[in-house]
């Protein structure tokens, strides 16, 4: 039962733990990330503000230094002298010379009237107005002035100081180019990128100097855009794919404004945090791995015992009893394991009890059918393995139902207990199993037994049972029938052996033989029997059976007024099949009911036909023990009589004595109903069963038929003659007609007449005849034989 792994408890526990931890870690990571980002931004802002001040200070310091330097130069006597007294060429060269001393990039001399006197950039001053009158005015007020200004597209720090002689005679303006060096100085001092941007009279902003790479510097004005007009204000900036914090510092307002853009790379600002962050990320990942492993371990510590317990419980469920679970834990799982072990003990104990009940017959304490079956199977395996034999006996008590019915079930049960004890005692020394299969059926397994030893044992058992039994102060006579099979001769599986033993037992019971070894002839279920069964069924359905009628002769008048209907089966290929070859077989299978119905139907039809044709003959119909157990038998006969409008007095029912004695109570009920219809009853084979005269007395019988074995033997055997005479006397004393069957010679006939027998039947008189033969035979008999008989 492979399930998706996610259904495993272990996986789910691990998953939940991991997801929770992941969420916590991610939240932590995200909050740290946002803290870091905002810290970096704040940091950048602060840096920019500080940088703004620092930048201002640098610019101021630079300015001061330059101013000082310019002032020193302006105070130089020689310079002043040159400026004051010499021609322009000299003045310009003096400007250059003294400018060079302090590395000024340009020097201009401005007259008090605000016009250029000399300019190092040009040979001729052209009397131009100095472009920065404000600076002069400022210098006049404060003694010096300075500003950042654009000249010729370059950026200069302009410093104006007076030339005094000793009163101010002119203004000297020195310009210091703001170039890469200065920018780099500022950039390295502030740790920022610095760019100077300027614009001349409404033209676009241009980068005049920058610490940025040239590509980025070119893109800067566009990127900053309107921000250039908003000095002293922090803003964000996207430049060349990088984020910056930015601050614009105004350096010079007016028509040609100059600003400085201070930039702080956010990536640089983040750099220290990124280190922290990547460490944190590493820690997060490591934590995750550890937590997954830990949760797997925890889950395993939970699920492994659960797996163990599951296997254990499955083992118990499958009936194996695995050894107790050992789980040395004090927690709930430990308690569960303890409970499981306890359950295992309890189950074992209870199963033992249940097994005992399941395999033991509660009444006799003998093994029951199930256990016997187990033993038998083991013994078969054993015997087959060792090439040995074994024997099985099935025993059924005779007339046990009768005992139960007459003496009551409690006594029946005591009888069974007594039988069980006797069997056990008799076989105590044998290596065998005695079992009660149910009801009054017992079985014995004889390992190593063969047919001879089994027969010996069976007879011994029968003797043991024949000893009088006293149950509840009642003397009970009991006998049994035993069927015997041996393995492997008559089967090598338990089912076959038991079935065949059963069959042999029934055969023994029918034959009143005590015990019988199984013979294939007993078996209705052999293939030959099965096909016979099918053919018999067809024969009934297609009227292939015929009825023959044997006359019953009245010894007093010699007349024939009754016949016995006997069934005949003329098989298409097998020829004539004797009734004793298919009637017992039909009785065993229950098909006899169909046959009985067929016979009754035809016999009654024939009888009615004879009546109609002026041949009044009573017809006897044989009914089997099985038929008697069916309450509807009487209804069947009633319907047939109605159908053929026949007086019931013309129909006789013949039943064997043993058929009644198998189950006297049921039989009696059926017989009374038949008699109630007006039918006559006759007891067949009288003297062979164990008829109780009490029953005979209660039965609505009109006639008894002495069994042919006594009649045939009476000529030679005095005992048989005694039985015949006693039976005739008994019948007459009870007001019954007596019929003798099997009359085959004149001597017997004469003796029967002397004894007062009422009717005779036998080959001496006539064998069974077909209706046509009978119709032909009857006039002849009346004309010739009857007078002969009567002489």
């Amino acid at each position, binding site marked *: 039962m492979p399930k998706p792994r996610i259904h495993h408890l272990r996986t789910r526990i691990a998953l939940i733990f991991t997801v929770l931890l992941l969420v916590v870690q991610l939240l932590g990571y995200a909050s740290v990330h946002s803290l870091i980002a905002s810290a970096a931004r704040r940091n950048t802002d602060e840096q920019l503000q500080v940088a703004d001040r620092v930048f201002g200070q640098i610019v101021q310091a630079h300015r001061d230094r330059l101013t000082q330097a310019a002032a020193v130069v302006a*105070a130089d*006597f020689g310079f*002043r*002298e040159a400026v*004051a*007294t010499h*021609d*322009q060429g000299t003045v310009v060269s003096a400007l250059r010379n003294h400018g060079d001393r302090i590395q000024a990039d340009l020097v201009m001399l401005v*007259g*008090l*009237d605000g*016009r250029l*006197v000399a300019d190092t950039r040009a040979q001729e001053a052209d*009397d131009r107005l100095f472009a920065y009158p404000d600076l002069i005015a400022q210098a006049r007020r404060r003694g010096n002035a300075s500003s950042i200004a654009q000249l010729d597209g370059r950026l200069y720090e302009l410093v104006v100081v007076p030339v*005094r*002689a*000793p*009163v101010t*005679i002119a203004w000297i303006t020195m310009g210091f180019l703001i170039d890469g060096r200065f920018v780099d100085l500022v950039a390295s001092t502030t740790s920022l990128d610095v760019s100077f941007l300027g614009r001349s009279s409404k033209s676009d902003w241009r980068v005049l100097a920058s610490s940025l790479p040239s590509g980025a510097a070119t893109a800067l004005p566009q990127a900053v855009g309107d921000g250039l007009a908003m000095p002293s204000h922090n803003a964000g900036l996207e430049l060349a794919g990088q984020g910056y914090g930015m601050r614009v510092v105004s350096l010079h307002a007016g028509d040609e404004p100059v600003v400085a853009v201070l930039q702080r790379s956010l990536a640089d600002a983040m750099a220290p945090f990124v280190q922290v962050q990547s460490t944190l990320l590493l820690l997060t990942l490591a934590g995750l791995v550890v937590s997954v492993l830990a949760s797997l371990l925890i889950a395993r510590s939970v699920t492994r015992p659960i797996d163990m317990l599951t296997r254990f419980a499955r083992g118990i469920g499958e009936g194996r009893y695995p050894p107790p679970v050992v789980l040395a834990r004090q927690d709930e799982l430990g308690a569960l394991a303890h409970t499981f072990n306890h359950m295992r003990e309890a189950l074992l104990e209870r199963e033992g009890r249940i097994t005992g009940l399941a395999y033991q017959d509660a009444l006799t304490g003998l093994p029951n059918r199930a256990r016997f079956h187990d033993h038998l199977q083991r013994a078969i395996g054993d015997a087959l393995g060792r090439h040995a034999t074994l024997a099985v006996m099935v025993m059924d008590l005779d007339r046990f139902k009768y005992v139960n019915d007459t003496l009551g079930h409690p006594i029946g049960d005591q009888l069974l207990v007594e039988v069980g004890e006797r069997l056990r005692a008799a076989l105590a020394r044998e290596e065998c199993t005695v079992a009660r299969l149910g009801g009054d059926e017992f079985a014995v397994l004889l390992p190593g037994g063969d047919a001879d030893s089994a027969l010996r044992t069976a007879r011994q058992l029968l003797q043991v049972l024949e000893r009088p039994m006293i149950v509840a102060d009642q003397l009970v006579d009991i006998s049994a029938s035993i069927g015997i099979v041996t393995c492997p001769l008559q089967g090598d599986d338990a089912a076959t052996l038991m079935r065949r033993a059963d069959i042999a037992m029934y055969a023994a019971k029918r034959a009143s033989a005590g015990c019988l070894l199984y013979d294939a002839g007993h078996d209705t279920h052999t293939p030959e029997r099965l096909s016979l069964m099918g053919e018999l069924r067809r024969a009934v359905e297609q009227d292939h059976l015929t009825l023959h009628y044997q006359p019953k002769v009245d010894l007093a008048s010699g007349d024939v007024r009754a016949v016995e209907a006997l069934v005949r089966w003329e098989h298409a290929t097998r020829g004539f099949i004797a009734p004793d070859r298919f009637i017992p077989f039909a009785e065993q299978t229950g098909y006899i009911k169909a046959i009985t119905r067929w016979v009754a139907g035809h016999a009654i039809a024939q009888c009615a036909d004879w009546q109609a044709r002026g041949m009044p003959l009573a017809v006897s119909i044989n009914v089997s023990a099985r038929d008697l157990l069916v309450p509807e038998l009487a209804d069947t006969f009633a319907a047939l009589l109605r159908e053929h409008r026949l007086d019931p007095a013309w129909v006789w029912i013949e039943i064997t004595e043993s058929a009644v004695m198998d189950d006297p109570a049921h039989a009696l009920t059926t017989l009374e109903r038949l008699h109630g219809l007006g039918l006559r009853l006759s007891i067949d084979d009288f003297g062979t069963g164990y008829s109780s005269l009490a029953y005979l007395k209660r039965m609505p019988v009109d006639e008894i038929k002495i069994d042919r074995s006594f009649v045939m033997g009476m000529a030679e055997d005095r005992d048989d003659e005694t039985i015949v005479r006693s039976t005739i006397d008994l019948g007459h004393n009870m007001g019954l007609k007596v019929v003798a069957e099997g009359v085959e010679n004149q001597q017997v006939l004469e003796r029967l007449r002397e004894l007062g027998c009422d009717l005779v039947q036998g080959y001496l008189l006539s064998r069974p005849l077909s209706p046509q033969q009978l119709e032909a035979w009857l006039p002849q008999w009346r004309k010739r034989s009857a007078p002969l008989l009567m002489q």
Partner: protein
Amino acid sequence: MTSLSFATASPWPLPARSRGCAALLLSVLAACGAHAAGVVVQVADQRGAPLADAVLYAVPVAGKAPAAAPGARAVIDQIDREFVPKVSVVQSGTSISFPNKDDVEHDIYSFSPAKRFEIKLYSGVPSRPVLFDKPGLVVLGCNIHDSMVAYVLVVDTPYFARTDKNGRATLQALPAAGYRVGAWHYAMRDPNAQPVQTVQAADGATPPALKFSLTTEAN
């Protein structure tokens, strides 16, 4: 073009141009007689405050003023690192000596076109006085002490005066004639914009006082 636009470089005795001068041109009183007369002048700044150390000089409208006597002398001391007096006015041809009365040396110079000179580091009285032979403003400084400054206005007339602390001065002993009176003060915003007033000096009669208002530098 060689003309340096020095304020002091204007041609003297009178300014050729008086551009932007806010000074009032007062009515010129008739001067009578040939006898010397004194003209009182009151000088104030643009706010009306009396202006000390303003220089006033009168140039005859017609004819020439008498030349300076040969050997005319003047003295400008250096005391406590200051020129004393700070403002002098002399007639051209006057020799000025610069006695150093400090215990440190001075090195006085002038780059003014009217008189360029330098007296190298010295103490005591230099051996020779310096002759101021051209009219014009001469600004003196000390090469050692930048704060030292002195103004010497050299004029071509013997008639000049300096205002006292009340801004008053008197041009003494003017022969009766018509004069153009110029006024100058070292703190004037435009040194070349000297206002000029005309006055008639008459013997025995005192002409009405002249009033000058000069625009000075803020401080």
